[in-house]
């Protein structure tokens, strides 16, 4: 059993009363106090075109990460960071199946791909991950990337059961 911790700190003067978050979670297996013990390791990918692609695939043959369907009550976690100094550039983070199409859409109507949010330059996120086959893939699409002008570089790590 491993011990993995994530410490989040948010500080803001956005209100006259302030806003602060200081929280640490220890990543455990679903429904237990036993720590997660598997990981994808820290991955770095270079996206050299604007295609909408799967970044992390759930429950698919050949996936580095085993199926983590919601019915399995698993407790996977995903951390993603967009390595870019230019804050006007972003990567679109989706949930679903990039194979549904390469055209960026907000919602294609059949729920096979949906945009969660955008990571602008230097931003990161950490979320739990269901990882269900096809509909649970985490997809990515850069706003700017090319072989000649520079790839969109994304780092991620998955912790899972």
């Amino acid at each position, binding site marked *: 059993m491993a*011990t*993995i*911790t*994530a*410490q*989040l*700190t*948010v*500080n*803001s003067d*956005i209100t006259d009363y302030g*806003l602060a*978050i200081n*929280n640490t*979670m*220890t*990543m*455990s297996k*679903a*429904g*237990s*106090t036993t720590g997660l*013990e598997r990981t994808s*390791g*820290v991955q770095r990918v270079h996206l050299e075109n604007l295609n909408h692609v799967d970044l992390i695939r759930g429950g698919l043959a050949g996936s580095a990460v085993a199926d983590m369907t*919601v019915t399995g009550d698993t*407790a*996977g*976690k995903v*951390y993603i960071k967009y390595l870019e100094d230019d*804050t*006007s550039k972003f990567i679109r*983070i989706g*949930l*679903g199946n990039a194979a549904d199409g390469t055209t960026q*859409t*907000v*919602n294609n*109507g059949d*729920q096979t791909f*949906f*945009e*969660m*949010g*955008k990571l*602008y330059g*230097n*931003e*990161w*996120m*950490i*979320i*739990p*991950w*269901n990882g*269900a086959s096809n*509909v*649970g893939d985490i997809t990515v699409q850069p706003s700017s990337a090319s072989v000649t002008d520079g790839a969109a570089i994304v780092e991620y*790590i998955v*912790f899972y059961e």
Partner: protein
Amino acid sequence: MATTTAAITLTSADLLTDALSLSATNTLYKAGTTIGLDQTTGMARAYLTSTSAIDLFPAIIEDGTNLRTFNGTSSWVYICNKSEDETEYITVKICEQVIGKLYAGDFLWMPWSQPADVTNAANHHGDITIAPSVATGMWVDWTCINEGTEYHTENLVIA
């Protein structure tokens, strides 16, 4: 202009052969700018006593013609399951798709586009919902820091 910073540190001394230590910090800006986010829903804390899924923020409602005011803007969402029972979880969804489950003590920190699509008749917009696993009562914290929240007019009738 407000300044909001977010930092994460991921550590493990025994997951791998060598210690894992990963840190990141950033300032939260409005989409595509270096202007700080200046609005928030405030930190909410609720004791949820039903397993029904609920919207955490005002629902993104289709009007049949226009994208919603804050569609595509920059928002950051924090959700934490404050339960101390390791068997209790909340299921977090966006657009009715499961992102994942937050077990006791787990949190998430994610961007949110408040996406909407006027062409989708099913009204599957980007609402973030949570559903507790038990109806015996669970404490949950959440907040959103953003460029704006579209609050509904009073007595809104949804077609």
